[in-house]
């Protein structure tokens, strides 16, 4: 609770510690119409584009992910030319097709992971803020320990134990990122539960369903949505980093992170650096695009959430 007290007199306190990082919490529900800034609109365009590629890329791709565009001309890292508009990779496969195939995999795994993290985190977080102190304390301690492990390290240990497959990746990402979601939703829940309007609703005799959906949700939605965006970015970075280390999506399946790894050689003895640049730009444009949207949403929600990224 001490975290939340801080907000009221934040003018007198230098905040910004790991303890007091809920500066995105606000006193009043967001008011006014939500409008995107120019950079936010760019973010939306980029994100919609990648979502489209993720859904339909594999049907629109000129080649299958492991097909060779030029079966007769066998040389790696070819420059872009008609037939392979982004050139070819280390095994002479079409970069463009692999980026399109990889989109679905990278985005799909990350989205599934962040949804799992949210289901676990929000359920336990809100539950913990309503439940008794003992359960709350136990959960908080447990998640604090989870938070003390660097995400990539956690991923390495899990992959070492269970091997790497897409389901393992999704569940690992979901588990690793649930503590942060738990912390945020617990703080939000605690904050809102003691508000006067919740008290009023209780006194009015409203049921839990009303309180959760009509009182808590409208007030928690904005911070949770912008945090969802942030978490999505983190999960994309996590999954691609694991793949980059060779411990995520396994070859010959295309995935943006593993494409960077496969084509590292292009930097030293390739005709072009596109094989490595294309997937890297794909990831960066997607995450930066989402970040631009998150910036807008969190500015609207009152706090600068992305300041914590």
């Amino acid at each position, binding site marked *: 609770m001490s975290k939340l007290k801080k907000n009221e007199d934040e003018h007198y306190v230098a905040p*910004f510690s*790991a303890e007091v990082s809920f500066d995105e919490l606000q006193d009043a529900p967001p008011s006014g119409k939500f409008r995107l800034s120019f950079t936010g609109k760019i973010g939306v365009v980029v994100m919609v584009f990648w979502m489209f590629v993720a859904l339909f890329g594999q049907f629109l791709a000129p080649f299958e992910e492991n097909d060779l565009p030029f079966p007769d001309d066998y040389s790696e890292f070819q420059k872009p030319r008609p037939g392979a508009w982004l050139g070819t990779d280390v095994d002479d496969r079409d970069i463009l097709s692999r980026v399109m195939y990889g989109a679905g995999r990278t985005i799909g795994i990350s989205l599934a992971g962040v949804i799992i993290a949210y289901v676990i985190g929000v359920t336990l977080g809100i539950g913990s803020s309503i439940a008794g102190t003992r359960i709350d304390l136990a959960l908080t301690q447990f998640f604090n320990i*989870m938070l*003390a492990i660097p995400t*990539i390290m956690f991923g390495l240990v899990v992959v070492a134990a269970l091997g790497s497959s897409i389901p393992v990746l999704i569940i690992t990402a979901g588990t690793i990122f649930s503590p942060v979601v738990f912390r945020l939703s617990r703080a939000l829940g605690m904050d809102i539960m003691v508000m006067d309007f919740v008290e009023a609703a209780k006194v009015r005799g409203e049921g839990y369903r009303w309180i959760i959906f009509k009182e808590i949700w409208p007030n928690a939605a904005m911070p949770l949505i912008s945090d969802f965006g942030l978490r999505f970015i983190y999960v994309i970075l996590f999954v691609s*980093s694991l793949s980059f280390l060779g411990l995520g999506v396994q070859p010959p399946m295309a995935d943006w992170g593993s494409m960077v790894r496969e084509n590292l050689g292009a930097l*030293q003895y390739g005709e072009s650096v596109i094989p490595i640049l294309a997937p890297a730009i794909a990831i960066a444009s997607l995450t930066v695009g989402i970040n631009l949207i998150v910036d807008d949403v969190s500015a609207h929600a009152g706090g600068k959430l992305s300041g914590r990224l």
Partner: protein
Amino acid sequence: MFPILIKKIGAGLLTTLGVSIVIFVGTNLLPGDAAQIRLGQASTEDSLRALREELGLNLPLYQQYFRWLFNFVQGDFGTSLASGNVTIAQLISDRYENTLIVSSLTAMIGVPISVGLGIIAAMFPGTLYDRILTLGSVTLVAAPEFFTATLMVLFVVFFLGIGNAVVVGSIEDKNLVELITHFILPITTLCLVIAAQLIRMTRAAVLNVMSSPYIEMAILKGIPRRRVVMRHALLNAIGPIVNVVAINLAYVVTGVIVIEVYFGYSGLATLIVQGVQTRDYILIQTLGMIFCATYVILMMIADLSSILSNPRLRHPK
């Protein structure tokens, strides 16, 4: 004052202990135990039983854990499973230098520059300089390390035409400047990665202090803005800034993993990746503990610095 310090340090130790349990249990989920892996095909029932006896693998899990923890604290990390009869300590002492040099050089170069840039941005909020810096860090902060690394390689190697895309050669007998040029690509990449966050967070921390009433008072008294920042705001912002620095140094601990693999030089990070690939769980346990402990300690410093600098947090209600 002291009680809360001791409490925080105690909490840090407890967290490390919790982390050690997670790592130990996690690595024990690996198929096959040390005796099986070590004996391989040549194992017989008797030899397996004998070796398990010797390694203490027939004990209950919690006893194995305490045994492992006790040895770990004493610096006895055990023997590698994958690389013959090499001890883990040997493996680590061969590799730790690169990691340590790159991280500390990053801290030495990246931190002062980024903090300085952040403070200047906070001095002149809303100016062109501030906007460019903010936009730059918004872009870089969300990009993966290997994207930044690729940009650095393109710029340094292809555009400027100097150096090599990978780090090669030995670091023996090199002085500081030579070391910096040797690791120029990993260091600049890591610096950029942490700078993106550091600049934003430093700026936010200083701006936060700048919005307090006593600063308003100082401005109303007619003190020039530069002096207000330097004399009035900065002193109170030191705590938050140290906190921010510690958080970002903790981030370097994980960022360095990708960077080492990218630039292809060997260090602790490549060692742990290799451990995962060869399923050498004793190696993973040890390195996992080292990385996590560093991370926890840095986070603890972040926590302590904000408590020490803020009387309100020293006496929580």
